[in-house]
């Protein structure tokens, strides 16, 4: 029996983690896996931290991922990557989007956003830094940053055989289909 795989997507409300997780889980289901996904939201629209926990395998029980057991953690923002380090298993892989979104305590001057987050993560785990926000801008729409990062997950987890173009076509508006497919490929090629 296949061991259950664990993927953690974290970010800040509004960054598109939920859509990325939706595409990912749709693809995994289409490929015949048992899938569970858990999200914590509610107040997240107010700029709080958001996380989507995705699990797949032959028979998945818990919808939540235990700390220390994620195969991959993908952070859409640097501080959220640091916060989610505890999800990763020692042999796991971390992908961090090279983007900073300041929490309110930094905006009002009560705290300073640390400048060495990537070094801190890199000193502890296998880190891959992605300039997904910049790549998305180059593709012409900063919003597809989430799909670029999804591409990096797909490649890293060996899921490239799934028909992702069909999944994108089913889940995004027709006028954004090609852009999202390009974004997905860019993400796959970058890792």
């Amino acid at each position, binding site marked *: 029996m296949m061991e259950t795989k664990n993927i953690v997507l974290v970010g*800040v*409300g509004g960054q598109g983690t939920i859509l990325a997780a939706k595409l990912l*889980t*749709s693809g995994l*289901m289409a490929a015949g896996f*048992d*899938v*569970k*996904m*858990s*999200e*914590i*939201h*509610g*107040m*997240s*629209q*107010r*700029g*709080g*931290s958001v996380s989507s926990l995705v699990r797949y395998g032959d028979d*998945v*029980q*818990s*919808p*939540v991922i*235990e*700390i*220390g*057991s994620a195969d991959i953690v993908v952070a859409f923002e640097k*501080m*959220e990557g*640091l*916060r989610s*380090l*505890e999800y*990763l298993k*020692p042999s796991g892989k971390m992908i961090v989007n090279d983007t900073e979104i*300041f*929490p*309110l*305590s*930094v*905006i*009002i*001057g*009560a*705290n*300073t*956003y*640390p400048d*060495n*987050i990537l070094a*801190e*993560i890199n000193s*502890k*785990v296998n880190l891959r830094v992605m300039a997904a926000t910049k790549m998305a801008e180059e593709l012409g729409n900063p919003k597809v940053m989430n799909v670029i990062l999804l591409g990096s997950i797909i490649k890293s987890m060996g899921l490239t055989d799934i028909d992702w173009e069909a999944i994108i076509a089913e889940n995004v508006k027709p006028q954004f289909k090609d852009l999202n497919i390009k974004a997905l490929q860019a993400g796959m090629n970058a890792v």
Partner: protein
Amino acid sequence: MKLLLTGNEAIARGAWEAGVKFASAYPGTPSTEILENVATYKEIIAEWAPNEKVALEAAAGAAIGGVRSLCAMKHVGVNVATDPLFTLAYIGVNAGAVLVTADEPGMHSSQNEQDNRNYARHAKVCLFEPSDSQEAKDMLKEAYAVSEAYDMPVLFRMTTRVCHSKSIVECSDREEVTDKAYVKDIQKYCPLPAFARNMQVKLADNFKRLEAYSNTSPFNYIEDNASDIGVIGSGVAYRYAKEVFGKTVSYLKIGFSYPLPMEKIAAFAKGKKTLYIFEENDPIMETEIKAAGIACIGKEILPTMGELTPDRVRKALLNEETAVIQANPEMVLPRPPALCAGCPHRGVFYELGRRKDLMIFSDIGCYSLGLMPPYNATDAMICMGASISAGHGVQKAFDIKGDHSQKVVSIIGDSTFFHSGITSLMNVTYNNSNTLTIILDNRITGMTGHQENPGSGYDLMGQPAAIIDIEAMVKACGVKNLISIDPNNLQMVAEAIEWGLNVEGPAVIITRWPCVLKKFSAQDKEEFPTAFKQVCSVDVNKCIGCKKCLKSGCPALAFDRVNKKSGILSEPCVGCGVCAQICPKQAIEVEVRS
């Protein structure tokens, strides 16, 4: 057909498949999406009620009237709905009625962690507890069959993890259920004492029959793995037990948990060396199983607070701790939710936070965030509607003590005012309280994700609806001192607060400006033609780096530490202009967005 559904989507699907024709709810995390999804099925009339009591009464009425009905709310909402619930248990239904309670182990978006399974025992209604989306859909259909067979409302306990987790659901078609005739029967529908005593006896009798159902219910089943260790589990806690123990122990899965299948439990316990009880929050099954003389282990080692989670199970039962990579904790900054850029509550909290002579009683909504820095405005909160009524009590206490050092301000939103603020405001005028009430009317129910409400002009199914006029409502409650203002005009806000604190008798300020995330209606476009069409920018030559603008707490601001100048991110900024009014050097310009 297989679909990947959240628990909330699965409940809506289950309601549709079960032939439900009417549904009512008040939004509240984690239950909100249930009715939003029900509303997508054209065969079901779906409604937002002003509060949970009204929602349950509407659903009860629909069931008495002869169609299957659904009601959904968050755990604390059931507190509001208990009055009809307890007596509906006596009266029973006609067509089936199910009340979904969405509990919050872990308190992700709630003020307490109450375990609403207790209500099943207290109100004398039976209880289902699904552990994933498939069960949520299947059990809901069964719940309607049980509701009709035993003539009682059914309580259906979801938790955040089941509501907001997706899993694969095998779906089927809608079952067209024949409507029930309504026949006048005062001995059934009028709980006068003489009739209610008979209803009580019938209810007790029904519970005896339900005990037999529980012992044979397909949702209470044994998974025998030939182990002398047994786990009795309900809800997602059962999934966590399976995650940790796999096939090394035997399970008794409890899906229909009140009344408990005591015969099945006794049979399962026989020959087991150790029996564990897995349930989130209170030791409810455990207490009853122990009372039946069956030895078991539960809350001696498992937590009564917070979510159970597999790692807590692993630590408690196996004494295993997973190796965890920790970041330097000093570097990890918290990221609590904040008022959005352009939020119309900002100006009010900025001005309230500047005063030191106020006791501010707040309510439940986005404006609960007024307690956070940089405003530090709010003193206290209890529950929906309490700002006005508890504020009244605080002011009375200050008056009794002769303490004139501070005055009470009550803060409430439009949806919360409709929910239960109106009766509180009646109390303020009727008992002549000298408080100031501020109603933040942002034209929508914001915190739960933009649900229509009686003031917004639309119903849950997107149809134009009657608009309840807050100003007229406040006047009708007997308030003589009332003004309506634009909350983005700081001078107007400050003057209104000063006025409200000094007039004789109760005063009310209504602020009217739409939520920045709201999808504008035709009426909004007409009333707020300039809203969110502007953008602010900093003239760096005028900025002296005093940081006063940062006191607005707007996430669109960014201070350049190197050059010591304020900056504004143009993407999130919608040009509300609050920061521009705070700036002492007029260094912030507001322009029409090009």
